[in-house]
């Protein structure tokens, strides 16, 4: 595809209509400066009181909010406990001991062979995968949301095709607000801070499109397990 | 402006066109309440209608002419008080918007607007009234008319005064803040929708199981009373000022003369 396929002049015509409507001229330095200033300064709305009050336990808030969204939350002290925790969850939900994850170093270091019969695979999700495992780069306490950056470490399809989605959230990466999570993203060692996809996930897939009643497992995962890990 | 002998503020009563023509007893009740709040009442003859029918039909020019006429009619009053949230809202919130920003008319309309109050909020918020002359023993429920509620934030004031009447019990109904479906010309232009809306309202009124349904706007009251009357309901419908002032000699709205 060519970079732009707009009908001749559509871009200019829309932009000029907008300027006419605003009573603005094309090279208005003051307006440009105001816009650039906002993009540079990135002002934030006041943080929600529930995470801004002094003494807020962000971890507790995160867990509480996420559980309200019908996700299961587990806590482990060290990485060595993770395979057994996942196995226990899959077993309790009558799921096979199988999962797939990306190239993330931490996930790759987990020793699933410590659980007998646990099969793991790497890469993007396949249609018959039953569980996907991802690593969040942040947990957002204000709503119990997990932030995931797509890429080889965390193929995005792992969070949507399999029936079960499991996300590891480092306890040290629990932040108060969305804006705090975006700040972490900006610190990523990459030219463009944005991955192809930034997924904010808060609970399993759901719908209320039939008679207004909530049903879990619409198109994406039917269940979501968040594991809060202490040693990350 | 105010009566120099007594220093009582002079209140211009804007009766509203519906009260004037359909239910003057509400105007008398309003006057009685304003006097009870230690004010002098005047009723300028040059008042007619606040202009809402024109304004809400997109006819700004006529609305503006009526606004200027009303403003002139109440020259010399310390306050302008209307027994209607809708008309008071028009005078207070919308008159200035009808005038060109920065014009003399705009300044006049704004100064006028500052003196305008809906009756019950005037009694409570401006005059600090906490009791009323009315006496009533029985149960009532209250409908919050839209303009009063959302344009003028009238919510607690009528309840405060109602609760000051010994023997009166206020039974809140569900969805008391939802529109009754009147909407002026709306009720005539879209009668089916209006009727469906008032049907939901009267169902809530009936469920509240009170003797009387009260509200602060005659338009809404005529709509609800009309529906209740069609449904042959026993629930009486009155303007809140009638109860507060104890003006209960006339039969309730849409009720036959035999029912007092």
């Amino acid at each position, binding site marked *: 595809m060519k970079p732009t396929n707009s009908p001749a002049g559509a871009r200019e015509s829309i*932009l000029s*209509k907008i300027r006419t*409507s605003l009573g603005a001229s094309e090279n208005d330095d003051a307006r440009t400066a105001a816009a650039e200033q906002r993009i540079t300064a*990135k002002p934030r709305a006041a943080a929600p009181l529930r995470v801004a009050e002094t003494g807020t336990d962000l971890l507790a808030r995160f867990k509480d909010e996420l559980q309200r969204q019908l996700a299961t939350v587990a806590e482990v002290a060290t990485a060595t406990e993770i395979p057994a925790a996942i196995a226990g969850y899959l077993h309790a939900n009558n799921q096979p001991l199988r999962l797939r994850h990306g190239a993330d170093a931490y996930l790759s270091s987990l020793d699933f062979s410590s659980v007998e019969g646990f099969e793991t695979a790497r890469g993007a999700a396949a249609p018959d995968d039953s569980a996907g495992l991802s690593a969040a780069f942040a947990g957002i306490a204000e709503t119990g949301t997990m932030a995931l950056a797509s890429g080889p470490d965390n193929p995005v399809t792992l969070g949507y095709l399999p029936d079960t989605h499991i996300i590891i959230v480092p306890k040290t990466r629990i932040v108060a607000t969305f804006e705090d999570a975006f700040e972490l993203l900006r610190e990523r060692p990459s030219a463009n801070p*944005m991955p192809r996809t930034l997924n904010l996930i808060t609970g399993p897939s759901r719908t209320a499109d039939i008679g207004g009643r909530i049903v879990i497992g619409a198109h994406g995962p039917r269940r979501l397990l968040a594991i809060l890990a202490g040693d990350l | 402006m105010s009566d120099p002998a007594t220093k009582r503020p002079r209140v211009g009563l804007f009766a509203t066109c519906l009260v004037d023509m359909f239910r003057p007893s509400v105007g008398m009740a309003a006057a009685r309440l304003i006097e009870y709040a230690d004010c002098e009442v005047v009723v300028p003859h040059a008042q007619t209608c606040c202009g809402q029918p024109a304004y809400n039909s997109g006819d700004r020019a006529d609305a503006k002419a009526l606004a200027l006429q009303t403003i002139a009619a109440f020259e010399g009053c310390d306050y302008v008080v209307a027994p209607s949230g809708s008309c008071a809202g028009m005078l207070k919130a919308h008159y200035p918007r009808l005038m060109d920003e920065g014009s003399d008319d705009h300044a006049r309309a704004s100064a006028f607007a500052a003196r305008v109050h809906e009756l019950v909020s005037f009694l409570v918020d401006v005059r600090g009234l906490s009791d009323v002359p009315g006496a009533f023993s029985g149960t009532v429920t209250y409908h919050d008319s839209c303009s009063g509620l959302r344009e003028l934030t009238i919510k607690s004031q009528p309840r405060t005064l109602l609760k000051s009447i010994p023997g009166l019990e206020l039974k809140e109904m569900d969805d008391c803040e939802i529109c009754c479906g009147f909407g002026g010309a709306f009720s005539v232009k879209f009668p089916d929708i209006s009727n469906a809306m008032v049907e939901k309202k009267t169902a809530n009124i009936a469920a509240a199981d009170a003797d009387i349904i009260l509200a602060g706007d005659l338009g809404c009251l005529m709509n609800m009373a009309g529906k209740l*009357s069609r449904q042959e309901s026993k629930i009486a419908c009155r303007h809140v000022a009638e109860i507060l002032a104890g003006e209960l000699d006339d039969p309730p709205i*849409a009720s036959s003369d035999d029912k007092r």
Partner: protein
Amino acid sequence: MQPTSHDFKSNARTALADRQLQEALSGIPGGLVAQRRAARDRLPEFDDLRDYGRDLRNHALQHLDIYLERYEQAVTEAGGHVHWASTGGDACAAILRICQGAGAQLVTKGKSMVSEEIGLNANLEKAGLEVVETDLGEYILQIRHETPSHIIAPAIHLTQGQVEADFRREHSQLPKDRRLIDPAELVDEARQILREKFLNADVGITGANFLIAETGSSIIVTNEGNGDLTQSLAKVHIVITSVDKVVPTFNDAAALLRLLARSATGQEITSYTTFSTGPRRAGDPDGPEQYHVILLDNGRSELLGTEFREVLRCIRCGACMNHCPVYNAVGGHAYGWVYPGPIGAVLNPGMIGIKEAGNLPNASTFCGRCESVCPMHIPLPKLMRHWREREFLEGETPFVTRLALKSWATLARQPWAYHALSRLMSRAMKFASGRHGAFTWMPFASGWTGGRNFPAPQGKTFQELWAAREKQAARTGRTQ
């Protein structure tokens, strides 16, 4: 979509008589409305946030041209393509070109009101493409050949029983005796059928709730995850959106996200909020190979210069319709075009003309409940009134209405005559009503008296009573 807004009155009558529709609509107060209230109550600073959101959207609109250029530049740098479209036709043509360029046969779609606005599905189907709606509500509508009746809950007008019947008819390959009693069973059936489509789609089309100038990202907010499957499994991801959706920064998007779900469904946040920036990166194991954004104008740039500018702040949460007593009475289809409820009453006349959509801004009591819940503080009643003013100025107000208004206004400007007529009317009506207190039929108001009685006046006007009181007082000497 062929508008039927001019038939609003008869649409509404049909809707009021539709028992299934009424049953479906009866769930709104206890559902979306109650849920929003609960979400608001859990966030005490909600109203401050609304002020912040309004101000930031105003700022974005005030600098719209600049932010759009900035956004375009960021998308391009991320390897995506921006296509500008002045009209719905241009937008459809651009999308078709992209689909054909990719050799597409099967197109999956996430929910997008802009795609409804431009009639996208019909356009692509005419060119021989298979288009599958993947949002469950939209999928149900697609198999019913219906349009959404709500901007966030498109199938809100349907009961579970209707959906079951649709599935039995449409999915005839499945066993006839299967159980479809629980909503979960219906959802599961749709899930299986749509899985197939996701996996085989060539192009995935989504809408966008917001666009971010800072990073060139488009955001979708969903609960089902269909939008994510749509955009990450197909080779090509097309975003169909409009020029008003751009916000300066990520942080600005965060502020609006706090308002959006709470206002819409009463959720703190939806299950999935997804930011997409360009196509898949080198080394990415999944994601689309191409990323296109269609920026539709369709009259918005002109609206920006009018008294209707404020409507462009809208974030399409649907709260105004959930809280609208008229919408609750007649549902979304009666409005006769894409956007129903108060937002539609303001937006549609700008898009399909006041001649077609004139009923919509008139079909309001101005109760103001929409404005009181709108997270963007859009003065919807004021804007509806502005449409009525335009109608009046452009002579679209019906002749009889004009005549009645003019005669009444002339009279109201002569207090003496006005009061004389009031006295006469009051007496005459009182006389006509006898002792009944109300009329069961009234000339010129037979609509009203169709369902209600019309209260009779007391017989004297207030001006009369007051004059009598004054006279009495003068005679006896003032005592007060």
